[in-house]
């Protein structure tokens, strides 16, 4: 089980800020594929991976990063603070 968090327009497209996901995905990308396959709103949110960023347990990561031991994976657009 992994907590998936969604921010900004990723959250809006999927329609919720977080959810617990039952998965055996080995990498972020495998998790993304599973989510995409769920429903069109997920497919829409994850349509263009190059427009997304990911954090594993609150640290920025790559989409090919391993999920072993991860508790929390967050998906969001590039940051626009400051």
């Amino acid at each position, binding site marked *: 089980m992994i907590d998936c968090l969604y921010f900004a*327009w990723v959250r809006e497209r999927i329609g919720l800020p977080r959810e617990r996901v039952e998965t055996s995905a080995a990498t972020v990308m495998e998790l993304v594929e599973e989510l995409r396959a769920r429903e069109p709103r997920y497919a829409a949110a994850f349509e263009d991976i190059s427009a997304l960023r990911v*954090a594993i347990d609150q640290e920025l990561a790559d989409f090919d990063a391993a999920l072993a031991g991860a508790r929390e994976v967050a998906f969001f*657009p*590039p940051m626009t*603070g400051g």
Partner: protein
Amino acid sequence: MSVRVQSARFDAGAELNAFSAGLGNAGAVVSFTGVVRDRDQGGMVAMEIEHYPGMTEAAIAKILAEAEARWDLVRALVIHRHGRLEIGEPIMMVATASRHRVAAFEAAEFLMDYLKSRAPFWKKEIGAGDAAWVAAKDEDEDALGRWSPKKD
């Protein structure tokens, strides 16, 4: 070194004075304040800032620690708001104090560059009848390039 992530409005001038008090041998203080401004096409009503509680504070602390490692800073401060902000309100503030003005300036610019692209905040511009997420700019990502390779 001080990090504050808050929804409450803050007073940039009061923060600058508190930051500058009792600095000892630091003679140079630089501040940056980001203020909510209208969109170029006008018609903006407010700004909404989303963030990632927990990661936000950790990411800013990490950026501050990196700045401390690179420059001889006596003090550094980052305040960043989230939630709804009206036009003219301060969004965020960075302040640095050093014995040398060049270090104070460089560290403040470094903090801004990294906060823009590495701290998990997302801005949304709220218009009278519309709302749109602010897109990240390539130039903001590119700006990080000037801080690498590591300098002393």
